[in-house]
């Protein structure tokens, strides 16, 4: 076909321009900003080299380490919970039960609820004095909790509220499960293997690419949690839920320290790249591809 180059560029121009204007440009600008002391309220902006990064790593900014630690804690708690729970639910939904489509819809529904609205619902369900959850617990004579208002319980509570929205992870697992050929199970049935043998010898190995994909996406998403921090806790109590992106937002938009906040953003980027890279590297040993060993 003639004039492919011209038309190709014409059709993709909005996307390429968009990338240049809204991704590449801001990325470079952010890197430059991170090397300055730009503050909206200060008159003078100076190029300060690596000062922002030095300040971050020197330990002078305690909140940096604190928010980093809290975010790691959240990621470590949330990623396995999301993966195990959504895989479990997907296994259940993959059984040939009646009304599968309805269950699928019910599981997916919470993940389309706007963050503010779902935060509102959970703030109340978890309210220590008036909430449904504590009232149920106390009626069952089980210990109650301060949930979002307790220093020790706030992060697990936030993890709990985000688990409500795992629908899309479940759906992706279901897609992976539906791609497993029947013959593999039949082969095990012929050998007299039961449910557990099917799970460990066929289902799990065959679904490892999906586990891999979901793990990467969940890690990337968990590091960037913001809405929950802003709406549910505002970083409290006593900074115990000072999530990294919330701290970044506060530094940049409330304290107007935009140079410093840009440095924070780049550190987050490097951290996310690092963990994605690690999962990619280890994936070679545990992700199974039917068509060969491409990773």
């Amino acid at each position, binding site marked *: 076909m003639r004039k492919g180059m011209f038309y190709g560029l014409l059709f993709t121009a909005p996307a390429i321009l968009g990338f240049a204007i809204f991704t590449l440009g801001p990325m470079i600008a952010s890197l430059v900003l991170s090397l300055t002391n730009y503050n909206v309220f200060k008159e003078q902006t100076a190029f300060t080299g690596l000062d922002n990064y030095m300040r971050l790593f020197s330990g002078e900014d305690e909140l940096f380490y604190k928010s980093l630690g809290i975010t790691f804690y959240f990621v470590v708690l949330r990623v396995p919970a999301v993966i195990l729970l959504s895989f479990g639910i997907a296994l259940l939904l993959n059984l040939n039960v009646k009304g599968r489509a309805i269950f699928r819809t019910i599981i997916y529904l919470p993940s389309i609820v706007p963050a503010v609205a779902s935060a509102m619902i959970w703030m109340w369900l978890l309210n220590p004095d008036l909430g449904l959850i504590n009232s149920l617990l106390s009626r069952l004579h089980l210990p109650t909790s301060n949930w979002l208002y307790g220093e020790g319980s706030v992060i697990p509570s936030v993890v709990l509220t985000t688990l409500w929205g795992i629908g899309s992870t479940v759906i992706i697992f279901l897609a992976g499960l539906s791609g497993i050929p029947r013959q593999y199970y039949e082969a095990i049935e012929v050998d007299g293997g039961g449910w557990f043998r099917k799970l460990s010898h066929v289902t799990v190995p065959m679904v490892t690419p999906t586990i891999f994909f979901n793990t990467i996406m969940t890690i990337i998403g968990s590091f960037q949690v913001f809405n929950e921090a802003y709406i549910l806790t505002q970083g409290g109590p006593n900074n115990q839920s000072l999530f990294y992106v919330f701290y970044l937002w506060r530094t940049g938009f409330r304290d107007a320290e935009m140079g410093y906040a840009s440095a924070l953003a780049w550190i987050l980027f490097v951290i996310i790249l690092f963990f*994605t890279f690690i999962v990619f590297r280890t994936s070679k040993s545990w992700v199974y591809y039917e068509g060969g060993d491409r990773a």
Partner: protein
Amino acid sequence: MFIIPFVWLIRSSLMNLSQIFTMPPEWIPKPFQWGNFHKALTVLPFDIFFKNTLIIVVTVLVGTVITSSIGAFGFSRIPWKGRDAVFAVLMTSMMLPAAVTMIPSFLGWQAIGFYDTLYPLIVPAYFGGGIFNIFLLRQFYLSIPRDFDEAAYVDGANYWQIYTRIIFPLSRSAIIVVALFSFLASWNDFMGPLIYLKSDKWFTLALGLQMFQGTYTAQWDLLMAASATVVLPCVIVFLAGQRYFLEGITLTGLKG
């Protein structure tokens, strides 16, 4: 587990305060307090928030569908040198945390005088419509047999005609998925409006609800009625298009 919070939301939005706090909890409102909705939606200018949200959702949806499908066409059905390499570069933006581009984007919009307007929330949709949507549509276009457009090309059709008369109509279901994703994303967006909007007159429902929470903290009946109002359109739109929606996610899950 997944449904109880919804039920709790709906029942609480239709109760008065004293019934809400009855222990043990009651599940059926008596009588139904339909007035909660009226009260909740009039104490703050929710009609303005709704109008703003609607403007954003509709214009973003149009922009997203048009530019992402055009882009996907250019990245799948037109052969040109360097095409796949350019696409791969664009795909990297999916890995980039929003936090990295947030501050310069904000400063840029402010510099050209569009801070506290709806433009920063709308205009980007007209520049590619999001790489994820392009990716989704491209996957779909790649599965359409090449013979169709080659036959049309031989008959003298140009790329624009192939796109508008063959590929776009053939990909109705994938387009619906993109439209749904776009609707939900801009209806639910919180961080964008939070950063770019300052005056109440531009607030969206998500911001309005957050503001409502700050002002009427103890009015759980009204809070729940307002929340239900924000959730409901999402649920309706989802239920209307769920067949395509779940298929679309399955598609990306499989071929991702």
